[in-house]
C-alpha cells in the first residue's frame, strides 16, 4: 500500500483527517486512472516491448553468449513488472524490498554490468514508443530506482529489524 496513505490511515484512528492530510490521498486517487492505464499498457505490450529490446541487445552484443543475454532480459522483464507494480502502488519500498540484496548480486556474480546498462537504455527508448509523457513520468522514477538498485548504485542495505519488517 502507498506508504504515506498507510501512515495517514494509521494516525487518523478516531478523528477526521485534516485538509492537508487528505491532499496526498486526493493526489493519489486522482492519479490512479493514469496509473491503471499505464499498468495495462505495460502488461499488454510487455512481449512487444521486450522483444524489441532483445533484438537490439543481440545486435549490440553480437559476440555475447545468448545465455547471458537471456538471463539479463529475463531479469529486466521482472524489473519492469516490479516497476509497474511499484508505480501502481506508488510505493518505492516495494521495488527496493524485492530487488535489494538479490538481483544486484546476480549482476555482480555474472559481471553483466555492460549488458544491463545497454539493456536499460534500450528499454527506456522502447518505452517512449508505448507510453505518453504522463505515463512515462509515473513509471520512470520507479524504473530509475530499480536500475540504481540493480547496478548497486543505491545505498548499503539496512540490517533486518522489526521496524524494517513494518512490525
Amino acid at each position, binding site marked *: 500500500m502507498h506508504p504515506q496513505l498507510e501512515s495517514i490511515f494509521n494516525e487518523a484512528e478516531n478523528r477526521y483527517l485534516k485538509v492537508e492530510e487528505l491532499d496526498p490521498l486526493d493526489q493519489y486517487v486522482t492519479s490512479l486512472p493514469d496509473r491503471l492505464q499505464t499498468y495495462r499498457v505495460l502488461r499488454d505490450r510487455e512481449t512487444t516491448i521486450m522483444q524489441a529490446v532483445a533484438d537490439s541487445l543481440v545486435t549490440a552484443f553480437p559476440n555475447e553468449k545468448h545465455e547471458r543475454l*537471456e538471463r539479463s532480459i*529475463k531479469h529486466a522483464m521482472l524489473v519492469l*513488472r*516490479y516497476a509497474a507494480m511499484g508505480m501502481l502502488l506508488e510505493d518505492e519500498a516495494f521495488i527496493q*524490498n524485492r*530487488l535489494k540484496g*538479490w538481483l544486484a548480486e546476480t549482476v555482480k556474480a555474472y559481471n553483466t554490468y555492460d549488458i544491463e546498462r545497454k539493456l536499460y537504455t534500450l528499454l527506456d527508448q522502447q518505452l517512449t514508443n508505448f507510453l505518453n509523457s504522463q505515463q512515462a513520468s509515473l513509471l520512470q522514477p520507479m524504473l530509475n530506482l530499480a536500475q540504481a538498485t540493480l547496478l548497486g548504485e543505491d545505498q548499503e542495505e539496512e540490517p533486518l529489524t522489526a521496524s*524494517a519488517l513494518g512490525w
Partner: protein
Amino acid sequence: MISVADLLVNNRVPGNYFATDAYVRSDLEMGLLENRQGDRLLALPEALIQGIYAGLDKETGQATRLVLYNCGRWWGKNLYSRFVEELTDYYGTPLSDMPMVEFLQSLQNCWRTHGWGKIELDQSFQHRGLLVVKIWNSAYARLAPQSNQPVCQLEAGVLASFFGQLSGRELYCLQTTCESMGADCNRFIIGLPKRIEPAETMVTNMEHDAIMQQLCN
C-alpha cells in the same frame, strides 16, 4: 534471435523467493507468523536465547557446546530439506539444475530473512577441500555468555549439516573467529572431519588465517 515469449514459463518470471516482505507473513488476530508457503515461523525473544544458554550451562556444563552443535546439526538437516523443497517448488527446477550463483544467493537471502544475520561463502579454498563461511550480526553470538572461545556452536552444527546434505558427505564445521570475542565477523571452516578436527585446539591460540594455512599444508 532471442524469443522473449520462450523465456517465460506460464507467463511467470520467478523473483527472489526469500524477499522479506513476500516471505514473512503475519496474522495479527491469530498471533501467527508464517512463511509464504503457510509454514509456521517462530520469533525468538532475546531472553529465550539467553535462557537456552544459561539453562544448558546449568544442566550440561561443559557439554553445552556439544549439545548446541548437535542441535544445530538437527536444525541444519531440516533446514536443508525445507530449503530444497521450497526452492524446487518456486523455481520449478530441481536443485541440481540450479546455477551455483543462484543457489548461494537464495541461501544468503534465506539466512537474512530468517533474521540470522548476513552470510557469505568464501570458495577460494574449495580446491583444498575447505569452505569458509562468514556470518555477521549473529544473535547467537551477541546473546551468548562471555567465553574465551567462539560460541556459535549452534550455527556451526547448522552449517556442517546443511553443506553435508548438499554434498552427500559427512562434514565438520569449526568456528575460528567470533563476534562475541570482538572479531569483525564469525568465521567457520567446513570440511571433512578428519581434515578439520585436528584444528580444534588451534582456535584458542591461533588467528583464522594461520589456521587455514595449517589446514592447507
